């Protein structure tokens, strides 16, 4: 194993040698935080397996290989709009595409957006709406976290979503992240979501890789700032390749009466670590945090959630489900923290895991930290296999064992999919999950990208 310090030094060196280029190809609001990020990174290391909270996924190791970083913002020639239609039938979305870390809007996107709504490149908007970006960029993600600091140090672009007061977006926004590069590539991207009071938006993110053989590394920080009574849905579907590593960190802060739904689904991946950090300083805020992971081969999925209740009468509900097959590893660490003074909090967490083969491993660590008495909190975690009796029942009615297993696993995932609040998407996800269990899925169905599995294409 490479030493943790080394994996960080290469990025710091990259920054110090190419400082001018990095700044020139970004925006002042983004550049402003870099010196601070650098000072935080000095004399520290990326989290590794000895770090509490990272026991199962070494971020240091993840970032250790020598990846290229597209500092000069060279346009990688991919005709994404033509080749990639990751559409969801039955629902129409406002689509934007992110190649590695640069945002490419679809041709008509701008016309379809509501007045005042921003859905575009973070870098460009940081110049045109510098005040907005400067106010919120880095306001939630703490630089004390080495991974966030590294992202802040090297991030040059990303996506900005801004919904003004009382604007309710009818159509969901969709963001397709595509990795495409002729050489191993690391992308440091950033998504900043700002919802003013009473605003409403839904965002669907799909992660893909153009080339299944190429090594990719994604470092992603999502910041979500929610105004009073705002509603935000985030569906984050990872459907990349076994050679993709991803460290995604979500930081959200909810004001009074706001409602947040985060649903993270890992269907295909290499090594994935998702951090969900949700703060509820407002009262009567509601959070639903759902997650699903289907891992096979030697995939590794690690989800880490931390929901912090500081406001009164807020509710949170977490549900994470895993199906681990072959030699894959799953890890889950979930925390609920109820601060002193957060009266009448209701916080629940549930983690259910299925181990489908002898080589499969699951590590789970649900946690409760309660500093208040007038609360209702619980968590539950189970790890086991499919119900033998149910399998027998189905087989005795003529369903072959493999099919019965698939059916039961599909049923197992149903309640995670049911948290989705867009009916068309719900249906689509059922379809994707079914296909994933049948082993047919390499990429989501109808899109024409070259990342397609040949088998799926023919269908």
């Amino acid at each position, binding site marked *: 194993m490479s030493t943790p310090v080394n994996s960080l030094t290469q990025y710091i060196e990259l920054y110090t040698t190419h400082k001018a280029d990095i700044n020139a190809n970004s925006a002042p609001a983004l550049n402003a935080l870099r010196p601070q990020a650098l000072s935080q990174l000095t004399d520290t290391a990326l989290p590794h397996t000895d770090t509490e909270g990272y026991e199962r996924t070494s971020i240091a190791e993840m970032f250790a290989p020598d990846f290229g970083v597209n500092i000069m913002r060279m346009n990688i020639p991919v005709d994404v709009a033509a080749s990639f239609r990751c559409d969801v039938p039955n629902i129409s979305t406002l689509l934007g595409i992110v190649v590695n870390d640069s945002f490419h809007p679809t041709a008509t996107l701008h016309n379809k957006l509501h007045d005042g709504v921003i859905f575009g490149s973070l870098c460009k908007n940081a110049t045109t709406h510098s005040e907005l970006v400067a106010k919120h960029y880095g306001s939630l993600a703490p630089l004390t976290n080495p991974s966030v600091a590294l992202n802040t140090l090297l991030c040059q672009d990303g996506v900005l979503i801004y919904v003004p007061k009382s604007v309710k977006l009818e159509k969901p926004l969709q963001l397709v992240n595509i990795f495409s590069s002729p050489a191993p590539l690391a992308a440091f991207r950033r998504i900043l979501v700002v919802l003013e009071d009473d605003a409403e938006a839904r965002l669907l993110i799909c992660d893909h890789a153009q080339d299944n053989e190429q090594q990719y590394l994604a470092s992603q920080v999502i910041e979500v700032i929610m105004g009073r009574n705002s509603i935000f849905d985030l569906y984050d579907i990872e459907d990349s390749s076994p050679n993709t590593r991803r460290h995604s960190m979500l930081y959200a802060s909810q004001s009074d009466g706001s409602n947040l739904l985060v649903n993270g689904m890992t269907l295909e991946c290499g090594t994935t670590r998702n951090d969900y950090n949700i703060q509820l300083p407002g009262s009567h805020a509601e959070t639903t945090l759902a997650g699903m992971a289907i891992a096979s081969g030697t995939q590794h999925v690690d989800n880490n959630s931390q929901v912090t209740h500081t406001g009164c009468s807020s509710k949170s509900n977490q549900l994470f489900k895993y199906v681990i097959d072959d030699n894959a590893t799953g890890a889950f660490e979930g925390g609920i923290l109820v601060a002193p003074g957060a009266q009448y909090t209701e916080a629940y967490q549930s983690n259910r895991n299925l181990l489908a083969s002898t080589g499969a491993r699951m590590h*789970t660590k*649900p946690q409760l*930290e*309660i500093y*208040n008495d007038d609360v209702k*909190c619980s968590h539950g975690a189970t*790890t086991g296999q499919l119900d033998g009796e149910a399998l027998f029942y189905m087989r005795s009615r003529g369903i072959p064992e493999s099919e019965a297993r698939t059916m039961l696993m599909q049923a197992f995932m149903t309640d995670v999919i049911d948290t989705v609040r867009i009916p068309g998407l719900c249906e689509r996800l059922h379809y994707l999950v079914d296909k994933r269990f049948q082993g047919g899925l390499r990429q989501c169905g109808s899109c024409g990208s070259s990342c397609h599995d040949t088998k799926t294409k023919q269908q």
Partner: protein
Amino acid sequence: MKDMTTDKTTKPEKNDSKNVIDNVTGNEYKYGFTTDIDTDIIPRGLNEDVVRFISAKKGEPEWLLEFRLKAFRHWLTLTPPEWAHLDIPEIDFQAISYYAAPKVKENPKSLDEVDPELLDTFSKLGISLDEQKKLTGVAVDAVMDSVSVKTTHRDKLAELGVIFCSISEAVKDYPELVQKYLGKVVPYTDNFYAALNSAVFSDGSFVYIPKGVRCPMELSTYFRINAAGTGQFERTLIVADDDAYVSYLEGCTAPMRDENQLHAAIVEIIVEDRAEVKYSTVQNWYAGDKQGRGGVYNFVTKRGLCRGDHSKLSWTQVETGSAITWKYPSCVLSGEGAVGEFYSVAVTNNYQQADTGTKMIHLGSNTRSTIVSKGISAGHSQNSYRGLVKVAPKANGCRNYTQCDSLLLSSTCGAHTFPYIDVLNDTAVVEHEATTSKISEDQIFYCNQRGIPTEEAVGLIVNGYAKEVMNKLPMEFAVEAQKLLQITLEGSVG
């Protein structure tokens, strides 16, 4: 166990609720007296000479001194663990005296030869050292300031081949047994406090139950720290050979002092084929005063190795004392079909802190474990459950059920749960459930309505809540433990 005389005599009046309340409110910490007896204390500080001194003082063989020195040298390389959810003030390990023994005449032949003050101490505590207590059928080994003072019922046990004596006697009388098992379950390299204990342990109990013997009585050890500025480092070693059974009880108290005292013990249990060991603890070290001054730091390593097939180890603990508790009684289930159980009630009040739980390590196939942990926090205390359930890759058909409930009695206290679940085998079924809540207004109202004052109602509800664990305790212990619960929570309502 500690207060059995009073229990016996007050039993008829037990239903008289006023009496209970008087009993409860009357004493804050009734074991908080010091006994003025000659104590043999060595100067504070720890170095190799101190380790050699302790070993020489006890007339130990060479191998044990080697063991101690190795542990000491290893300890020097370690730092105190910081991962627990505890706020531990820095401990100056050189400011502690590592050996304090009550001066007694060598080898007391009968009770008459024991220091009368010492006997008085024990009768204050209700320890069954005297004849009357022998009738209750509990064999007691009393350890005061880490030296075993008196073991009762020894002859009777010897008839069955059961060995129950202090560990220093065992070193002299059964060196091959002690050498065979000492440090096998908790090696000195295990953790900081285990290394410290291995270097300086002064005494403790040794139990050996031979093949096929069901120990006819409950064995009991009573621990007390008496001298100021000392630490207590005792070591318990229990071996249950094939088909044996033993139920072992442990109780602890300490006097009230302003400074903190350190208690770092090791308990090792080895369970062979089809044998069963039941280990019950009522821990009531001095918890500090209402402002959180003083109290015992209880940093204990307890572990059992169920290495026999179909062996069983059951831990039951009622934790009401200590300023800080750091304790994880564990089961290593390596035998086929071995069973591990952990039942715990941990109560914290005022400024107490507890980080306690268990580890169930499933190495053998078809091993089963059950964890039931009930935490009750009041005042400004912090109460955490921390547990590990691990299923090894080759352990097929394992089963675990974990339940952790927390009850919060004030808005300033904290209750936390940190379970670690590592499943490396696909045939395992592991379940974990945890809930946190406070006593509902409805329940209190219901009791009030029927003329039960709030304080008493809380006691009632808490006892009901802890019943599942209390039921696992031996009878005499359960009565004591229930009272302790009420004393600890006294004044925490309203």
